[in-house]
């Protein structure tokens, strides 16, 4: 069987034990305001960041930014914009014409503008990818400095899927010209409460 053949070959060829180094997050921690750093990095990678006092306060901003959005799926309490019943969706294809998805983010990472979105925040895994525009609402106090501080937070994460989202989808595959909006959302709005 190939499994034992491969493992035998590996065991024959792998070197003697080499120790695993410790990661010291303090070595990589930067001084400074996490919220400001997060906002500036996320803006630099193409995200639109808004500071708001409550989810409700995001409503007028979303309405102004997406006046033509007809099909909206919202997973955030306090933002009454839903035009579809999330539970009625049975296939990805039914979301193909989704104009806007609004989802909660668990926490952000200042060094790279990434936001952790667990599967439980979504009605379907495809949601934050298939939507034309994505909005994430998160608690602005939930920002860590680096990825070294992000993973301890995920120590007890047991869900089947989760994703760090950093900005809108993008590509530069045609002569290195940056185009925002590849296969995923054409834009990302982030509301920091």
């Amino acid at each position, binding site marked *: 069987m190939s499994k034992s053949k491969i493992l035998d070959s590996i065991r024959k060829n792998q070197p003697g034990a080499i120790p695993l180094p410790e990661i010291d997050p303090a070595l*990589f921690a930067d001084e400074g305001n996490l919220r400001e750093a997060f906002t500036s990095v996320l803006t630099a990678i193409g995200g639109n960041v808004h500071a708001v006092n409550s989810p409700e306060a995001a409503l007028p901003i979303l309405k102004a930014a997406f006046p033509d959005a007809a099909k909206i799926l919202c997973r955030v309490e306090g933002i009454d914009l839903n035009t579809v019943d999330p539970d009625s969706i049975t296939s990805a294809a039914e979301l193909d014409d989704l104009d806007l998805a609004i989802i909660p983010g668990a926490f952000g990472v200042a060094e*790279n503008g990434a936001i952790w979105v667990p599967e439980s925040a979504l009605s379907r895994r495809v949601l934050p990818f298939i939507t034309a525009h994505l909005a994430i609402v998160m608690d602005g106090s939930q920002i860590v400095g680096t990825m070294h501080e992000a993973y301890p937070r995920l120590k007890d994460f047991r869900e089947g899927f989760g994703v760090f989202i950093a900005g809108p989808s993008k*590509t530069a595959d045609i002569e290195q010209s940056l185009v925002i909006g590849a296969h995923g959302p054409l834009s990302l709005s982030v509301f920091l409460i």
Partner: protein
Amino acid sequence: MNGHPQAAAAFNRDEAHVDWHDTALWAVRQKRDTMAGTVRNWESLRSLGSQIKAHTLSNLGQYLEQFEKNALQNGVKVHWAADAREHNRIVCEILKQHKVGKLVKSKSMLTEECGLNPYLEAQGIEVTDTDLGERIVQLAKEHPSHIVMPAIHKKREEIDLLFQEHLGTRRSGGDALYLTREARKHLRQRFLQADAALTGVNFAIAETGGFVVCTNEGNADMGVHATPLHIACMGIEKIIPAQEHLGVFLRLLARSATGQPITTYSSHFRAPAPGQEIHIVIVDNGRSNQLGRPEFRNSLHCIRCGACINTCPVYRRSGGHSYGYTIPGPIGSILAPGKDLHRHASLPFASTLCGSCHDVCPVKIDIHKQLFRWRQVIVREEGADFFKTLAMKATAFVFARPGLFAFGGKVGRLLLKITPRFLVYSRLNSWGKQRELPAPPGQSFTEWYKRERG
């Protein structure tokens, strides 16, 4: 036997395009430098990356078994493939069992290495590469010329024509925004019509049985979440011990690759969605042999960021296709001879040995030293005839380009100045062993000549 010099000469026929290629890749290298400069203790981060990989390789068997056990517990199916043929057969069988007619793929250099696409197509399965760059080369019936930027060798006008022919677009002169939007529409259809999705794996975590896939375009996730069957193919070296190590590698990967702080999507898969299946295919295909070569072992640290490719003066001026191997550039040139020494014998000579690849590598692979070691192996194994023909031609390619030579020389002299004695006079440098190297001159002959001539 054809080799790098002949193919590189072909690429060099379009001078202006070679200049563009050279400059574009150098710009990516510079973005990488800027980004690395913003990270506190970047060098310690690289060391960590290298040490974690070295540790993992020294425990690889155990970690792979741990990974399998946890993945099975998560409800994921695990397959083992000793070589490319077995990999292709396994993938095809899974697809046949699920009656898959249409497959969407995101980027996977491993499936390129295994020649999966032609294999599946011969079995009547429609395969669509969904990364924009990969779709471009697929439509052009070519192969990726770069592991991160698959279509970097293509001019926008060529892409314009290609899309007119296959996607029915209008003539746009190569308008990147227009063409990308059209590709989005075209591929959206493919995602929604597909029966299954195949992805690569950036990191597989022994501790959790989960794995991470990184993209900027969102194509991997579009395919995976729109279809009921997800096949993820990984080389045995993709394993890392625990989730916390993702912190190190995700910090290194995108910064080194494109100068981004992180890719847009870092997707963490652990268990299938309701009604979905996930299959992982773990592939050896020569990797465990490389593990048994101590002087080349750490080439398995590679996280496929492409930084060594972007910085390589020879790659930039010879193009990815000139290497004739799935992974081009410096890293490919130390991996390929391990697979087939005779066939890839010219590759280790397609280098100035300037060491720039090693300087940028996020996991500190001593690529330039391994290139030098392969040269010694090749001269020994392939004999003098080979050396006189191919090796000399490859060397001639390097020396015929004053730009390359200047780049290599400058860095070389700098290295000689800053490299500790024990490195210069180590066993690797058989010449330095016998005699002291001359003090590096402050300026090279070329620089002196330029100055003297005004």
